[in-house]
């Protein structure tokens, strides 16, 4: 086991854990006392026991975490991705730091980095939301939403429909049978290095359950999950769409999100039962680091959907413009006959950003169908890789896949790479793969300029056109924001 840096702190954790274990009852006051303690950096079984105790978790969940942790210790960080970065020191991270203190935040917007505010302004974000995003003191998210009473209306409507939408840690208590049945059933605890780490230490995330035959009355968004202010470093999301149900889930927002945590290792699991449909849309705009590649988030995410029932459908749409390093492959396991998997992606890397992203479509059921549309844009010194696997098992009679994978280069110092993998074990399967790499041509630029359109606007217009096939999959208001976001992210890419 890895050693913790601070022996006294470890001793402290041991004592607390033992106290918790001996009491078996967790009074609110006691929890508050613990929260006042600063959990030192470092990862050990004791830290995991502490996290689990703080969350008042049942024993099976603690054991699940520990199993993952023990396996993680034997695993090595993957190096096959086309990215290079300085390795994370896992013993320097504090694995339990919530609730995050507002005391250290800026007092008013005047204290916030003007560059950040300028970006908010360009994206058209209202002032109250700007304060929230910048982490200004005493501006609670619920205040922002309560002022227009969106939050309240929202909760009431969901309740009427029987939809469960709450933090995962809450669901563990209120719907333990569902969590126990589905957690880790799509992404096993030992799936990969980052998923194992997440399983061991996750502290935040969402839980969604859509009952049989229910169409979720509104788009669910992390944006509206009013009881959590910060997105966690190790988020864990679980969405279950029961038979014949339908849900659209939006993750993230277009505003640039700053975070002191460099490593983000989230896990998202989706389960679609018979005839159910899940649409999962992401706009990821974490801090990308500065123009020379200093700072920035490592975004190492495992996202996977299981089309468990016949005729079920899972659709991933992502717009990835942020983070210094992106390592992300939202995937579909097409288990049910006639199930459908989709992956629509726009990934942009500017300056020194690196992205290795794509998908996996695993065809198991008969007549399963998958569509992949990937649009990668590299500017500055950005590096962009598409990595996709289409696997058709022997059982996948009549399965079909269509992959379209396009890269757009802006400037001559960036790079775009394509790594497609295919495995077909059923001769009746159909696979189509189209790939293009293009540059914004001098002809296109001059054409726009000769019509009076300036260089930056022309680039942004051409890039948006390139991404159209993906943007049209996004919910309407998200699509508009995504276009603005691309324009902002491309600033400084020309000239």
């Amino acid at each position: 086991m890895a050693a913790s840096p601070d022996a006294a702190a470890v001793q402290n954790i041991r004592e607390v854990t033992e106290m918790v274990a001996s009491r078996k009852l967790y009074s609110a006051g006691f929890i508050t006392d613990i929260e006042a303690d600063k959990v030192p950096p470092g990862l050990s079984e004791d830290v995991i026991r502490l996290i689990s105790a703080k969350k008042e978790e049942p024993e099976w969940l603690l054991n699940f975490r520990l199993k993952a942790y023990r396996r993680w210790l034997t695993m090595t960080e993957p190096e096959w991705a086309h990215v290079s970065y300085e390795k994370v020191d896992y013993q320097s991270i504090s694995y339990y730091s919530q609730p995050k203190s507002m005391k250290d935040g800026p007092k008013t917007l005047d204290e916030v980095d003007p560059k950040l505010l300028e970006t908010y302004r360009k994206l058209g974000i209202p002032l109250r939301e700007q304060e929230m995003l910048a982490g200004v003191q005493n501006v609670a998210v619920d205040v922002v939403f309560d002022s227009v009473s969106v939050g309240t209306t929202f909760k009431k409507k969901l309740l009427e429909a029987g939809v469960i939408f709450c933090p995962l840690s809450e669901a563990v208590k209120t719907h333990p049978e569902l969590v126990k049945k589905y957690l880790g059933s799509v992404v096993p605890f030992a799936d990969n290095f980052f998923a194992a780490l997440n399983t061991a230490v996750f502290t935040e995330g969402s839980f969604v359950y859509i009952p049989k035959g229910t169409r979720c009355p509104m788009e669910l968004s992390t944006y509206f999950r009013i009881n959590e202010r910060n997105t966690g470093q190790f988020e864990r999301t679980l969405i279950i769409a029961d038979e014949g149900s339908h849900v659209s889930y939006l993750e993230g927002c277009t505003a640039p999100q700053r975070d002191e945590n460099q490593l983000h290792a989230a896990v998202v699991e989706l389960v679609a039962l018979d005839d159910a449909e899940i649409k999962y849309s992401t706009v990821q705009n974490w801090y990308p680091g500065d123009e020379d590649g200093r700072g920035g988030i490592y975004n190492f995410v495992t996202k996977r959907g299981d089309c468990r029932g016949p005729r079920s459908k899972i659709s991933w749409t992502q717009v990835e413009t942020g983070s210094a390093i992106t390592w992300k492959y939202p995937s579909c396991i097409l288990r049910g006959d006639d199930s459908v998997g989709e992956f629509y992606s726009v990934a942009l890397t500017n300056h020194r950003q690196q992205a290795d992203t794509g998908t996996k479509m695993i065809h198991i059921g008969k007549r399963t169908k998958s569509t992949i549309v990937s649009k990668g844009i590299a500017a500055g010194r950005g590096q962009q890789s598409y990595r996709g696997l289409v696997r058709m098992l022997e059982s996948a009679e009549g399965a079909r896949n269509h992959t379209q994978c396009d890269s757009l280069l802006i400037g001559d110092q960036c790079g775009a790479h394509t790594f497609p993998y295919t495995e077909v074990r059923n001769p009746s399967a159909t696979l189509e793969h189209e790939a293009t790499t293009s540059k914004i041509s001098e002809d296109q630029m001059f054409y726009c300029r000769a019509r009076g359109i300036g260089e930056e606007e022309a680039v942004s217009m051409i890039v948006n056109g390139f991404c159209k096939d993906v943007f049209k999959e996004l919910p309407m208001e998200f699509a508009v924001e995504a276009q603005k976001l691309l324009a902002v992210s491309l600033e400084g890419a020309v000239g």
Partner: protein
Amino acid sequence: MLLEITNLHARVEEKEILKGLNLSIKPGEVHAIMGPNGAGKSTLSNVIAGREGYEVTDGSILFEGQDLLALDPEVRACAGIFLGFQYPVEIPGVSNMTLLKAAVNARRKHNGESEIAPNDFLTWVREQAKKVKIDPKMLSRGVNEGFSGGEKKRNEILQMLVLQPTLMILDETDSGLDIDALKIVSDGINALRGPARSTVLVTHYQRLLDYVQPDFVHVLARGRIVRSGGPELAKELEEKGYGWLEAA
């Protein structure tokens, strides 16, 4: 004077193409520039519009009295210069409406005006599209994406009708057009003729000039204007070719 070109020398990749070209255009005039292949006709169009890679080594171009060569291409366009391309490029995924709107608003911004109201704009574009027989459905398609040669040229004229430029430079707009398309394109050009607006028709053939009557015809050869005259000069060229002028 709307456009005044004096002793223009320009080169492309170290090769001098224009060698002391002079041309003056007054408001309301239509000038045809004819000449053999490689004489520098397209170079002249590109130099006026400000394309990168065309280096002006000597001479000047004044547009409404201001030094055109000091301006970026988008500023020239906003000032009222329009280049109709010989080979209009495709911009996949960017709809014709998006491009037109960006172009119109860029010019309005340049003139210190607010953005155009979406409804007014739509009505205006549809009216113009009718003039060049462009189906409204084509407006939502990508710029020149999958357009036939004739459709691309008609689309250039549509942009010109929408933007209402002061100086229209049409670079071999007639090439590759059948007679019906040539008629439509000519009607579009003629519709914009007026006392404040000037046109430069760059062409190989007399054909276009049967539909758009020029006030002046110039022959461009070996990088300069070697002869100027009225419409009758075009007819003479049609009969005799360029050889007699090049030898001169």
